[in-house]
């Protein structure tokens, strides 16, 4: 049991891989999920730019993405991953299914947040002669920002959990490490260590997200 000097650096590397996967996937998810959430919101009946057909179509895609168990999604999007990254093994490859899995999740959260912006604020801004995109940019997104930050925090935590699952099929990161060293070599202490590390990372992120959202809400 004195191999911790050998394991610790590897554990650190795995943590770094997890942070890398989750970090890049979060950035991509925000980049894709927020516009998708905006589109879902504004195309709804009675909203800023009603478009029932597009709305239903987007809703269907989002629901499909959300109803699929992540482990199935991992396997299902493998050809796409190979097409983009060239391989399906390793942390960079895992970013593709992570992003595909998290975008619909975040889009729904964004939709919920934006819907809670009082319609009167939208109306007041339209009465000023604003274009619809001005309303999205200067009213919907800023007014929902505290709630959006909370939504992104939830998404990041979900991504960490997804990324650990991706370890099961050679995705790299803490999940991969826990399976290869902890599970397959019967080293419960290593499994526990990764769990503690994951917990610390999640707690830190949640705390930072909550703090940020609260600061935005109260100024």
């Amino acid at each position, binding site marked *: 049991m004195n191999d911790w000097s050998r394991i610790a650096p590897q554990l650190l590397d795995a943590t770094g891989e997890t942070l890398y996967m989750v970090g890049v996937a979060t950035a991509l998810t925000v980049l894709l999920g927020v516009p998708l959430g905006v589109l879902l919101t504004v195309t709804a009946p009675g909203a800023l730019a009603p478009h029932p057909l597009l709305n239903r179509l987007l809703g269907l895609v989002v629901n499909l993405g959300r109803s699929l168990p992540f482990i199935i999604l991992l396997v299902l999007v493998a050809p796409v991953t190979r097409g983009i990254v060239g391989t399906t093994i390793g942390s960079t490859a895992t970013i593709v299914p992570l992003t595909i899995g998290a975008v619909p999740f975040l889009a729904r959260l964004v939709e919920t947040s934006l819907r809670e912006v009082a319609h*009167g604020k939208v*109306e007041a801004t339209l*009465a*000023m*002669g*604003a274009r619809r995109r001005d309303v999205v940019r*200067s009213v919907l997104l800023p007014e929902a*920002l505290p709630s959006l930050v909370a939504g992104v925090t939830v998404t990041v935590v979900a991504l960490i959990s997804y990324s650990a699952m991706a370890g099961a099929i050679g995705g790299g990161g803490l999940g991969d490490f826990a399976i290869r060293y902890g599970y397959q070599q019967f080293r419960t202490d290593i499994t526990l260590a990764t769990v503690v590390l994951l917990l610390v990372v999640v707690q830190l992120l949640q705390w930072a997200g909550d703090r940020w959202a609260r600061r935005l809400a109260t100024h």
Partner: protein
Amino acid sequence: MIELSDVRKVFPARRGAGEVTAVDGVSLSVARGEFAGVVGPSGSGKSTLARLVNLLERPTSGTVTVDGRVLTDLDEAGVREARRSIGMIFQHFNLLDSRTAAGNVEHPLELAGVGRTERRRRVADLLDLVGLADRHAARPGQLSGGQKQRVAIARALAARPSVLLCDEATSALDPASTAGVLDLLRQVRAELGLTVLLITHEMSVVRAVCDSAVLMSAGRVVDGGPLTEVLARPDSALAAQLVPAPAAADTGNGALVQLTVTDASPQGLVLQTLTAELGLSVEVAAGSVETVAGRRFGRLLLRVEGDDGRLDPALARLRAAGALVQRTTAGDPRPAPAADDEPPAEQEPDVQRLADAPDVQR
């Protein structure tokens, strides 16, 4: 300045609710610089009417003209441009919580593409105008209701509009804040030469600030005109709402006479005729006299005892001389039509005037 011509707004049927005609053939004309009120019970379509003026709601039929521009003929870009000259304030203020008071006032200027230094200067002037120069950096959550509405007024005035729409702007405020906001509206109207269309269900607000008003019911304008004219019409439905006829307990003997007091027809002549000339005993059973639209207006309910048959001829004579006086009965706030000698035809055009805009190019 504002011309609505036979405007209808029909909301299509939704799940669980049939088609709703919110505004049903309304014609309305508001002159430049006028302070016009729209009153009516909730559901009468008055808030929809306000939204038709800046095309937040597009009318199903009819035309909307503001400052000579036919808004209903404009495309989306044209409507956006036109909206900049129509400010609007709301019952719930609708300020952005993500911005400071100054940031909220700056918002329409950003949208209009005004440069940063010019924006800063205008925002400072506007907050000064509404008396909130010291609350520049305050968030909406840190302001009282009255202060929020002041910020909203500054915001509505930022793009230098010629028209201000007020949708129940004082309905969420306490009486003191209401008085402050109304004073401010009156002040900015005078200073900036604004035309104001004020939607409210509070008659006291109309009495305090409006030059003219229309009464809406079930999507239609049922009465309206300049307040001084409306109030001088004893059978006006709007006047009855603005200054309800006094109620008197049905005690005592004698005839009840309702007297409408205006600048043009003071009560002195009537009282003098009844007491000094006829020698009748006259008591004021109920009533009030107040200042509406800057003029004296009131209704008095007189109890007249000792009538020997000369009262009715005397009242007819007084009416001929311009007094607004008629017999009434207790518990009946509306005068009996038979008691009115004046031909009703003479009053018709007054009702039509506001209900028939093309005839009145004010």
